[in-house]
């Protein structure tokens, strides 16, 4: 052995020594997400806003920290350990992989998950009933039956429903499996097209042309990030697009009866506030999104070859021009 270089280690020790000051009597919340993207960021901001409304203001009487794993599960694991070591009053974990990393690493620190579609399948919870554990949260499970009603209002003669999704996304697979069960009971059939990367979304949509009467999209990260590619196909082939998130309507979907992720975050934040005020997470019933909004886009409808019924226009929370 020649020599052990101690210089980098020295720099490291210095960095580690600078522990952030811990303030007594102050509540603390640590938030982590697997990746940064607009919907998940909206959840985070919603949590912060709701906590402020409940009297916990970041920087004043609340120690707030946020870490993103930048899409890397190894980093997610390490963030989980850092947070548990900091012993905050609650950890908010956004999306399935982050939530699993935190829940696997602690049985003591309260954990509130958010934007997890199926927390029971992800084994974050044993059931949807309040349990004994340290975990509760808010799911972004879609009210699929209501969305299918909307789809039938937009395209009354629809028989075949296309869906573009990423088979590598847990949240999307939950939706596809539910649709496979739900659609036959409504006299509809599901036609699937897989898009493992966001650049595949356009070609997956083109593969549906001639096979479907309408294309439905859930909140799949790949699809949402490349929604324009889908809209182009819809316009060229006159296939209407119905989405599950309201932002996609602004980008060219005909209609969406969807979750507003900011509201989902606020709902999560109110749950966190209850824990900060002394409630046990195990006593709080896990929730699904309560606030769904209808957005319609008559211009997109015209371009995609359908006319929206007046009833739908009247019921809409927002009409995108």
């Amino acid at each position, binding site marked *: *052995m*020649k020599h*052990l*270089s101690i*210089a*980098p*280690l020295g*720099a*490291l020790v210095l*960095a*580690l020594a*600078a*522990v*952030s000051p811990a303030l007594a009597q102050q509540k603390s919340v640590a938030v982590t997400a*697997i990746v*940064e993207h607009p919907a998940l960021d909206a959840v985070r901001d919603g949590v912060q806003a709701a906590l402020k409304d409940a009297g916990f203001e970041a920087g004043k009487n609340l120690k707030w*920290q*946020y*870490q*993103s794993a*930048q*899409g*890397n*599960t*190894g*980093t997610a*694991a*390490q*963030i*989980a*350990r*850092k947070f*548990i*070591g*900091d*012993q905050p009053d609650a950890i908010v974990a956004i999306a*399935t*992989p982050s939530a*699993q*990393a935190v*829940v*696997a*690493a602690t049985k003591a620190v309260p954990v509130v998950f958010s934007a997890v579609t199926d927390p029971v*399948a*992800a*084994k*974050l919870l044993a059931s949807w009933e309040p349990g004994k554990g340290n975990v509760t949260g808010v799911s972004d499970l879609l009210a699929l039956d209501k969305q299918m009603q909307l789809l039938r209002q937009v395209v009354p003669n629809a028989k075949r429903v296309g869906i573009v999704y990423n*088979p*590598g*996304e*847990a949240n999307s*697979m939950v939706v596809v499996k539910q649709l496979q069960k739900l659609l036959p009971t409504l006299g509809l059939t599901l036609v699937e097209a897989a898009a*493992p990367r966001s650049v595949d979304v356009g070609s997956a949509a083109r593969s549906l042309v001639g096979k479907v009467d309408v294309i439905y999209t859930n909140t799949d990260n790949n699809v949402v990030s490349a929604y324009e590619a889908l809209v182009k196909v819809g316009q060229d082939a006159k296939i209407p697009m119905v989405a599950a998130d309201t932002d996609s309507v602004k980008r060219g979907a005909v209609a969406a009866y969807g979750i507003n992720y900011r509201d989902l975050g606020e709902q999560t934040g109110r749950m966190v506030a209850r824990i900060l005020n002394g409630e046990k997470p195990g006593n709080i019933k896990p929730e699904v999104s309560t606030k769904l909004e209808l957005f319609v886009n008559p211009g997109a409808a015209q371009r995609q070859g359908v006319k929206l019924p007046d009833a739908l226009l009247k019921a809409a929370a927002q009409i995108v021009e």
Partner: protein
Amino acid sequence: MSLFSLLGAIEIGLIFSLVALGVFISFRLLRFPDLTVDGSFPLGGAVCAVLISSGTNPWLATLAATAAGAAAGVLTGWLNVKLRIMDLLASILVMIALYSVNLRIMGGPNVPLINDATLFTLLQPEGMPDYVARPLILAAIVLLAKLAMDWFFSTERGLAIRATGSNARMARAQGVNTGAMVLLGMAVSNGLVGLGGALFVQTQGGADISMGIGTIVIGLAAVIVGESLLPSRRIVHATLAVVLGAVVYRFFIAAALNSEFIGLKAQDLNLVTAVLVAVALVLPQLKNKLARRKPR
């Protein structure tokens, strides 16, 4: 930095040191640029998670995961040696194919393992908290892997693998079957990576299809950091350096996660990590320069 976060860095560093040992074999000993690891790491995780959640003994599941990783390595080697596909391309082909294979094995993008028995719950001594037990168990496993590797690469067959990597033509002239050595080396390399994947899912609450992304970058960074901390040509020191590199790399991440006090935000994490690793790489050179300036 808290004790929990410190032990967490060691724990995850030790897991990734198995990946780094695998990468060391392919990149350094075999000189085979191998991106298979981005697929064989989640492959090991997928096999292990599915077996454990269907009730298989965790030891057996971990062993199967190691074998699956080795098989992936053999496939890459075979594409290269027998079908004469360029090494880098062969590994990329196997890596992207494994994405689909992993989805098939897992039957979906995510297999949770939160309340199942794992190697770690089986081996955890009574009364010892899990966050202490896990790094200790991992240290033992990694030590065993390191010693086995030291031994293997000093046997005749191991030396033949190293000869194949440093000068294939010469090795063939000495009667070494270089094709078989590439296959064997790739099997050992990806077997270690598959083992790493299996241990990762058992500490992380489950396997996720996204867990492979960037594995090769982490592995390479660990090898390079290790080599700059402890430069040596001897295999015994080199493997120690690689393990050390993987753990130190995780300390860099932990430091980056704890760097909010200087105004850094979550989106700067990758940048901070890159800068810290770059500093670690440059410092030994600076020290050499300073040392040379001293009067002899």
